[in-house]
Each structure stands twice: as C-alpha cells, then as structure tokens.
C-alpha cells in the first residue's frame, strides 16, 4: 500500500517537474532574448537612422541652424573637456575614498559605515537634483557661471558614489595574503599600494571607470543647468559648452526637423562610448596588470 502511494506520487511528480523545468527554461530564454533584443533594436535603430548620409565633416563642422545643419565639432570637444574635468576630479577622490573604505571596513568602523550610507543615498539621487545643486554651488555660489568646469565638477559629484563602490569592490578582491607577503618582504605601505593592490584591483577600477564615463556621457539633466547650451567651440574651461547628450535632447525635443541630426549625434555618442569601454578594458588588462610582473 505504502509502496503503491510512493509510485503514484512519483508518477505524478515527474511530468510536473519536467513541465516546470521547461517553463523555467522558456522563461529564462524569453527574458534574456527580450534584453538582447531591446539592446539590438536600439543599436539597429541608431545605426540605421544615423548612418544615412553621415560623413566625416559632420564630426568637425560647427553647429548651424540650431543643429539642423552643420556638424557637431565643438560639441565633441566640449563633451571631451567635461569628461576630463569630471574624471580629473572624481578619480583621485574616488580612489582615495575607496582605499579608505576597503582598508578600514573590516574593523566595523562607524565613520566608514556612515560614509558608505552617505554614498548609497547619493547614488540614488536623481540627476536633475545634481544639476540644480551644481547650478547653485558651482555656477552661482563659487562664481564659475555656466561653464565646462561647473558641468564637469557636477558630473564628478554624480559619478563619485558609483565609482567608489566599484573601486572598493576591486580593492577588496585583492587577496589579504598579498598584503601580508608584501609586509613580510619589507615593502612600504605606499609601494604595496601602487605595486600590488592597485594593479590587482585594476579590473574593478576599470568597471567603475566605464560605469562613470557611461553615466557622465549619457547625462542631460545635470548638464543643462551647469555646462549649458552654448554651441561655440570652447576656448577655455570657463566657457559654456553643450554636451552631445544635451544636443540630442534639444534636437529631438525643441527643434522642429532636428530628428535626422539627433540620430547622427546619437550614433557618434554610442560609438564614442563603445570605444572608451574598449580602451579602458584594454588598459586595465594589459597596462596595469603588467606592473606586478615588472616588480
């Protein structure tokens, strides 16, 4: 009797488990295909619409007729400068903070816990709030006005939490034995950091850098109020300069007939982003990692 029950149960269970497996697999495939499809569709759309009559002069010519004619030369320069200011401010501060967080977190330091919570809150703040904050602090209070400097520093505030968190993960992934071995060999703390920990944490740092650059390049709301709307070629960091993403937004939303050039600009931005990703990954793999061997 008991034996019979078990058999019936197992008979009933097998097809059910099979169905469940099948449904799970189907769900998984559907979900991942949807994600891949969405990305594929966006890329296809941008390339299909952007590549039509795109020529190299678009990349160097000045903006004319609100972007409906001419090119995006000055905007590429402005975007590059904003990004440089952003990285010049965020990478040193971010690296030092990440080292502090990674080194002292194990000891349950209350200050470190507080910093980490502040970073998490900061990471969730909408970018328009950073824009208004940057406008109030950098443009008005510190007197920088609408400038590439204001825009870059505002972006730095925005990407810092993101960068610090990934960099911290990078530093924590360095095995603790390396540190002990280093000290045993009589290495100084600085030497240990620059020769062992930094190169070992490079992949994590690269991820942080790529995420930061991606977020900075994609940013519109924070830049409209800080680096501004001017399409002239910037002559210094104190000049206002429109970024590529602000240009895309303006062409798509405010300029009738701006659609085709919005797509071309979007294509340039996507290619730029992929290029930066590639270069950063390559440097992290080949540039920094070799330093350990050349010790």
């Amino acid at each position: 009797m008991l034996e019979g029950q078990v058999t019936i149960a197992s008979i009933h269970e097998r097809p059910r488990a099979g169905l469940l497996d099948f449904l799970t697999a189907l769900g998984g495939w559907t979900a991942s295909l949807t994600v891949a499809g969405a990305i594929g569709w966006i890329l296809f759309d941008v390339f299909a619409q952007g590549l039509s009559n795109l020529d190299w002069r678009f990349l160097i010519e000045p903006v004319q007729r609100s972007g409906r004619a001419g090119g995006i030369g000055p905007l590429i320069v402005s975007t590059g400068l904003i990004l440089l200011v952003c990285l010049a401010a965020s990478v040193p501060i971010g690296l030092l903070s990440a080292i502090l967080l990674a080194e002292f977190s194990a000891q349950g330091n209350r200050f470190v816990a507080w910093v980490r919570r502040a970073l998490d809150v900061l990471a969730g703040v909408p970018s328009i709030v950073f824009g208004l904050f940057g406008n109030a602090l950098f443009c008005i209070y510190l007197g920088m006005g609408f400038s590439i400097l204001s825009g870059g520093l505002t972006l730095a505030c925005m990407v810092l939490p993101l960068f610090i968190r990934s960099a911290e993960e990078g530093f924590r992934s360095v095995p603790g034995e390396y540190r002990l071995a280093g000290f045993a060999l009589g290495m100084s703390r600085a030497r240990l950091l620059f020769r062992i920990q930094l190169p070992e944490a490079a992949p994590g740092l690269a991820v942080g850098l790529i995420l930061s650059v991606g977020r900075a390049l994609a940013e519109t709301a924070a830049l409209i109020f800080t680096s501004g709307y001017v399409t002239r070629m910037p002559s210094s960091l104190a000049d206002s300069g429109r970024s590529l993403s602000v240009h895309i937004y303006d062409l798509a939303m405010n300029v009738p007939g701006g659609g085709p050039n919005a797509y071309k600009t979007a294509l340039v931005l996507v290619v730029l982003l992929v290029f930066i990703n590639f270069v950063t990954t390559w440097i992290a793999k080949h540039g920094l990692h070799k330093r350990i061997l050349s010790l």
Partner: protein
Amino acid sequence: MKRFKLSALVIISIMSAGLLSACNQSTADTSADNDSSAVTGKLVLAGSSTVAPLAQEIGQRFEQEHPNVRVDVQTGGSSRGISDARSGLADIGMASRALKEDERDLTAHTIALDGICVILHADNPVESLSDDQVRAIYRGQLTNWNEVGGQDAPITVVNKAEGRSTLELFLHYYGMESTEVEASVVIGDNEQGIKTVSTNPASIGYVSIGAAEFAAEDGVSIKLLPMDGVAPTTQNVRNGSFPLSRPLNLITQGDVDGLSRTFIDYAQSSEVNDLITGLYFVPTQ
C-alpha cells in the same frame, strides 16, 4: 587622524577647483579688454526652451557681424528667464509668453509670435471641437470620442508639464485651472507632444502651430483643428486672426542701452526673419 586626512582632502579639492576657475575667469576678462571694435562684450541670455534655439541662431549671426561679441544662450524655461533677468544672472531673459501682472517691473521685447493649436491623430474623424468641448475633454467630463462625433474610443488627454508656458497660455485661453485638468499623459516639449499624439489614434494634445504645421507637412499623422472657425496657419497667427497665440519675448530690467540694446534691435529687425520662419515661428513684421 583619519578624519583630518579626509577633511584636508576635501578642502584641497575645493580650493584647487576655485583656483582653476579664478585663472580661467581672469584670462577671459583680459581677452575681452583687448577688443578694440565698437561693439564688444559678452551677452548672456537664459530662459524659455522654445525661444532658446531661435535666440541661439540670432546670436550666431550677430556674432558674425560683430566679431568681438559673444552671445551665450542658456535654457531652462520661461520662469527661469524671468527670474534670471530680474536677478541679473542673465543680461536678457527669454519667455514664450507675455509678462504677468506681477512682472511689470521688467520690459518685454517681442521678437516673434507663436500660435498654439489643438491636434488630433490624422485618422480621427473629428474635424473640429468647440471651446466648450475642449474644456470638457480636458476636465475629464467628456471621456469618449463618440460623444463628439468620433469613434467609440476612450480619449487620451495629453497635457503639458507644469511650468511650461504653452500650458499657461492654453489654460488662460480656456479659463481653466491646472488642477482641473484630468490628463492621461504629461509631456514636456512640442516635439514630444507631436510624437505622443501621432502614435495614439485616440489622443488629443496642443502644441505650437509652426511645429505642428511642419510635422503635418512632413507626413507625421496628426491634424490641426481650427479654432472659432479660423484655420490654424502661421499666416493667421501673423495677421492676428488666430485667437490662441503667444509672443516670444526677450526680457530686460527696464530700458537697456549698449550691447543689450543693439542685440534686441537686431533680433527685432527683418534681418532675422528667415531664422524665425526657419523654426516655424511667425515674424512680427
């Protein structure tokens, strides 16, 4: 000790940022001082995102004629244009509406006109709506197209976001408060409004006539509704017969002279008419 290091770091970074900006400002100042021609200096315009592309193009042409002048245009909305002109953050504000009662301390200089019209999807059989019908639709009292002679489909009401002057003008004309509007979709700019209505056959929205006229001629599936029997065309906006239109204004603190005056005179002259019509606005003369 740790605390000290961190605060030192913060102070150093802020100081270096301040130094950098100071350096850059001084170089910008000296370059401006060295200019020798009659009209020199830098003008900052800020405000309405509707006026910004036009002001930017006028500024570009003005810079070509006066090589020692720089015209910087910033955007952010009409309210920002008013407040920046008042606070002096901008030399000239931009607003896509007339000044209100409490803004009479400022002076408006109209450079172009813009009409607003109600748009429907091109496939919608409804050919016109009375003011009362539009009001009822936006108040949520009329919710189906079959109540105004259309097909049996619930109406999607597309409204502009708070702070947009198109919204203020629309509400003012129909005598409504923004809290009365029962919107299904809230949008920001003209192009977004056109895109939203053209992709939803049961929707109703309102945008600039110039932008809508261009989109309709370009094959986008929208149609422009007449108002009080007056056809929504740029011609009818210019001759004043179209009831729902707005001025595009440059805003200054009282009467101005010098560079601002020269620029405003230029922006109001017929020399920039091609730029105005190029953006589907209507020149004043």
